[in-house]
């Protein structure tokens, strides 16, 4: 077996990273806003919103992909609207793979961020207000920095989840070489044909390494931001 990945395999890795980076970049602000709403606000429909956010975690991924196809397909209401207004087509494109990965990563990111927002003592926000801070400034200077460990952990977790996304991606964005064939899809494809064992092994090893790196990075970032507070500069 040739030990080093071929350039075609590196291209698959690059595509996977591109898809996951876009997915996470799109999801971080949305996930944080949802996490904040669920952690800090009481409003009608909150339980429904909570359930909707968590749905991709429990649905078969193929069903999530099918729902995305219904909504964001070229004839779906959102897909049609996107194409009309921006010319953007998601289905069968790498951007569609990123959308599928984003939706699948969302619940994990919201959970991590929500826990860390709930851990921020609301009394500190009250203290900031008495010191003259508007609600927005209190959020930016107290809630956001104190919940940052959860944001980083959630981001890394979401990134790792995006790298591994399979079911919703193959359903919504299909398995198109060079466009939507990310690492898991390439491994799956390799397993369907004889003689690709070596390539499958190399891609699987890269998958493991990337996932472990993302998890380690998340752990290190969380520790650093916790540790900083307890020490004398």
């Amino acid at each position, binding site marked *: 077996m040739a030990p080093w990945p071929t350039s075609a395999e590196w291209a698959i890795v690059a595509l996977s990273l591109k898809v996951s980076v876009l997915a996470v970049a799109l999801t971080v602000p949305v996930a944080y806003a949802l996490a904040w709403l669920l952690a800090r606000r009481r409003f009608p429909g909150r339980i429904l919103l909570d359930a909707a956010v968590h749905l991709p975690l429990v649905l078969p991924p193929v069903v999530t992909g099918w729902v995305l196809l219904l909504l964001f397909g070229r004839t779906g209401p959102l897909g049609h609207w996107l194409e009309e207004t921006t010319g953007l087509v998601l289905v069968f494109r790498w951007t569609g793979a990123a959308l599928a990965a984003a939706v699948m990563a969302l619940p994990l990111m919201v959970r991590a961020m929500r826990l860390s927002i709930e851990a921020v003592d609301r*009394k500190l926000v*009250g203290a*900031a*207000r008495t010191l003259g*801070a*508007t609600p927005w400034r209190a959020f930016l200077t107290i809630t956001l*920095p104190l919940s940052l460990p959860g944001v980083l952990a959630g981001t890394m977790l979401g990134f790792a989840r995006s790298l591994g996304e399979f079911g919703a991606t193959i359903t919504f964005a299909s398995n198109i070489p060079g466009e939507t064939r990310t690492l898991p899809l390439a491994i799956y494809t390799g397993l369907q044909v004889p003689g690709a064992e070596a390539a499958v092994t190399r891609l699987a090893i890269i998958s493991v390494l990337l996932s472990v790196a993302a998890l380690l990075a998340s752990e290190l970032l969380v520790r650093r931001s916790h540790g900083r507070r307890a020490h004398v*500069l």
Partner: protein
Amino acid sequence: MSFDIALTYRAGEGTRECEIASEAKLVAITGPSGIGKTTLLNCIAGLHEPLSGHVRIGGETLFDSAIGIDLPPERRRAGYVFQDLRLFPHRTVSANLAYGEQAEAGLMTRSEALDFLGIGHLARRFPATLSGGEAKRVAIGRALLAAPKFLLLDEPLTSLDPPRAEEILRLIERIRDELGLPTLLVSHAAAEVERLAGEVIVLD
């Protein structure tokens, strides 16, 4: 009038009423635990919504349910020293002090406050590394630097050993005598109340 307060508010299970009308610079509020003393301070600071009534301090109306005035906490200018201090754990002492600092017409500059409170050497430390007495002085300094129009001190001497408590007592006396800010002090230590307060309100 320093204080003209009449409030009905929810505290714990029940509804409480409290009236304070006083010319004294330092008014102490005392009463058994759980009677709603801290909740009263929160109502005055704008952190807890009273059922009805009014809050006027130094002639300024902060809350009046009859005419629909309810200033948000950031516009009430309370120098609130919380019982649990609430220093911001992710900011150094100096960044905590700077948080509400008002450039215009503050009572004192930051370096004066550091001197006044004897906390200059702590500027680069994080709150988690401070002793109880140090943290308390930082919390008082943070409140003073925000150019407050009045002070709310919630049990400022609890959890301090006698020498530290004496230090903070002297500090409160200096704030009363040298800065002349209207101050509400919640305490259930009779000696402390007697020594500091011009008037005592008992909640029961």
